[in-house]
């Protein structure tokens, strides 16, 4: 009889349990894994930065007495009617189709309660979101699903989507389970097909064409509404410079923690760069063009709380945008649905098969019964509460740094906990004057 080993069983770091399960899944199904959400890796992020706070060299503002402005104007470079937001936190583009009509309504209600904007997505504008969003950004996407000039003129801003942080260089995906009659009609597609959106716009390529595209959109809308350009976090310095040069009023940079309704796992986890690494190159591009604060910068991808908001703004952003966090505020991955998640082979907090349309929380679904689980009014209230908390948290930090406006936060208010984050954010390693790479 073989003697029992006295050493512990050793699992492989390279072939860990998840990796092995993914190999087995690929071997069994013959298809890559598709899921929603953003990168789940342990990436360098805003948690790696700390605020220094005020002391002798700088003095703080009274936490509950002295004002700290949160308002921001987006898009006053060329448009006559820029967005006037009460808080520098916007709701990112998420489509009807990917989300239920109730979820879109809840996002609109919540954003409107606190005076910020929400954004359409691939698939066009629904009456629910237009009706409940005081300030609505209409996306112009490569697919042009549901794009029409009437909705364009109803929009408060237009966002040309070049890329998305979860999938730079990739198009959207909406699988057949979610293409019901209404979604199919809005997208001019047969019901039940697996819809794979194009990755490039059908009628322009490159910055010179985009400049003319922006001209066309301005001519159609009478130069009234701001034009945003959204790029994925990949080469932020060049992409932001080119977007600004092309005439954008606002540039949105979406890092790899930014979510998607559905795409390949390999894409989400291996293409693009972390949000933290996007901000300084984007700001530098605008500064070198003399356009920082003239072309506003919105940063998105994994923004979770007021500290993240304050850090993004301190690095030079004008506002942030949230998607995944807004869905969590509505009830996505809520532990109260744990039993339902277990039936789907997952757990509350891990559910990411948004493309299958079986979301127990009624958010990423077109199933009528499931969608009814989300009360749009209650969802909107929850989102408004969350946005208010984030704003107050950011104000708390700003006052502690002696700032009476969130946008007065600056890189000099920050230090980094790791060499990597110091290099990415361009701020000194804590306790030193060392900024790697400078």
């Amino acid at each position, binding site marked *: 009889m073989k003697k029992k080993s006295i050493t512990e069983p050793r699992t492989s770091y390279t072939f860990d349990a998840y990796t092995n399960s993914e190999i087995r899944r690929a071997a069994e*199904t*013959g*298809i890559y894994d598709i899921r929603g959400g953003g990168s789940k890796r342990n990436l360098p992020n805003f948690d790696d930065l700390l605020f220094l706070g005020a002391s002798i060299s700088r003095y703080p503002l009274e936490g509950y007495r002295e004002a700290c402005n949160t308002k921001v104007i987006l898009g006053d470079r060329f448009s006559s009617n820029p967005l006037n937001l009460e808080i520098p936190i916007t709701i990112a583009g998420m489509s009807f189709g990917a989300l239920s009509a109730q979820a879109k309504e809840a996002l609109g209600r919540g954003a409107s309660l606190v005076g910020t904007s929400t954004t359409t997505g691939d698939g066009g504008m629904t009456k629910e979101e237009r009706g409940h969003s005081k300030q609505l950004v209409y996306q112009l996407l490569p*697919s*042009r699903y549901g*794009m*029409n*000039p*009437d909705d*364009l*003129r109803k929009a408060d801003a237009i966002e040309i989507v070049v890329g998305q942080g979860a999938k730079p260089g990739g198009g959207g995906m909406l699988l*057949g389970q979610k293409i019901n009659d209404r979604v199919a009609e809005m997208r*001019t*597609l*047969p019901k*039940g*097909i*697996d819809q794979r959106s*194009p990755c490039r716009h*059908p*009628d*322009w390529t490159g910055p010179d*064409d985009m400049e*003319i*595209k922006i*001209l*066309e959109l301005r*001519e*159609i*809308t*009478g*130069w009234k509404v701001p034009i945003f350009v959204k790029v994925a976090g990949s080469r932020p310095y060049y992409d932001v410079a080119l977007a600004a040069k092309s005439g954008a009023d606002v540039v949105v940079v979406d890092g790899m923690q930014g979510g998607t309704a559905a795409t390949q796992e390999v894409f989400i986890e291996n293409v693009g760069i972390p949000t933290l690494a996007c901000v300084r190159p984007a700001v530098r591009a605008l500064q070198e063009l003399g356009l920082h604060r003239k072309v506003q910068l919105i940063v998105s991808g994994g923004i979770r709380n007021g500290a993240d908001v304050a850090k993004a703004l301190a690095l030079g952003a004008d506002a942030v945008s949230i998607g995944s966090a807004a869905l969590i505020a509505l009830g996505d991955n809520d532990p109260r649905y744990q039993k339902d998640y277990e039936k789907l082979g997952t757990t509350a907090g891990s559910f990411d098969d948004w493309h299958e349309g079986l979301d127990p929380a009624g958010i990423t679904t077109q199933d009528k019964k499931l969608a009814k689980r989300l009360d749009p009014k209650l969802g909107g209230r929850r989102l408004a509460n969350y946005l208010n908390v984030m704003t107050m948290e950011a104000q708390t930090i700003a006052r502690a740094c002696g700032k009476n406006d969130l946008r007065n936060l600056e890189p000099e208010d920050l230090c980094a906990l790791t060499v990597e984050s110091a290099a990415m954010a361009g701020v000194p390693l804590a306790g030193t004057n060392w900024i790697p790479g400078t």
Partner: protein
Amino acid sequence: MHILDFNKLSLRDINKTLQGSDKNDFFSIRNPKGSHALAVGINKKITVKVVGSVGYYCAGMNKFSDIKVEGSAGPGLGENMMSGNIHVTGDVSQYAGASGHGGSILVDGNASSRCGISMKGVDIIIKGNVGHMSAFMAQRGNLVIFGDAGHALGDSIYEANIYVAGEVASLGTDCIEKKMTKKHLSNLENILSNANVSDYNPDTFRRFGSARSLYNFKVDNAKIY
């Protein structure tokens, strides 16, 4: 008839006039000099004649209007148009009729690559030849080509119809030749009749459309995804 002259007016002036005009107004635009984004976003049944060639996105996102270009047009002619008509007497560049939802485009000359890309219901008639990747991901509507078609015609096409009288260099993924049924012949004749095109022999046209084999993922198709 109202004359709008680029030698005297700006692009904004001209588009604002067209967009704010009354139903059934008639405009003649002079000296366009290849201007981009001309006659876009019109929402009324007006008639516009452009004397000369135009740049990008002429007649983009229009509804109801009749636009005639006496010359050639740059990229994106009639992009995302919803209804109405466009007639170009010369040639057109890339992406003509891209993502158009309705109405019709008639081009007397040739069209460059990606003609009818992502079209969603528009009818496009090209009296000459079309370039490569035309009707790429075409969702609905009809592309009628009197001349030859370049490579990868109808790649990843959905439910649009393609009619070709000339030669096809190659078909794109999931695009196949289909039987010209009486229904489809009637459809072709209607499209051409609506555009006042009568000088053609219907028997010379072949029909192409989707094999529908890529509509839902099948592992056996992995090599072409």
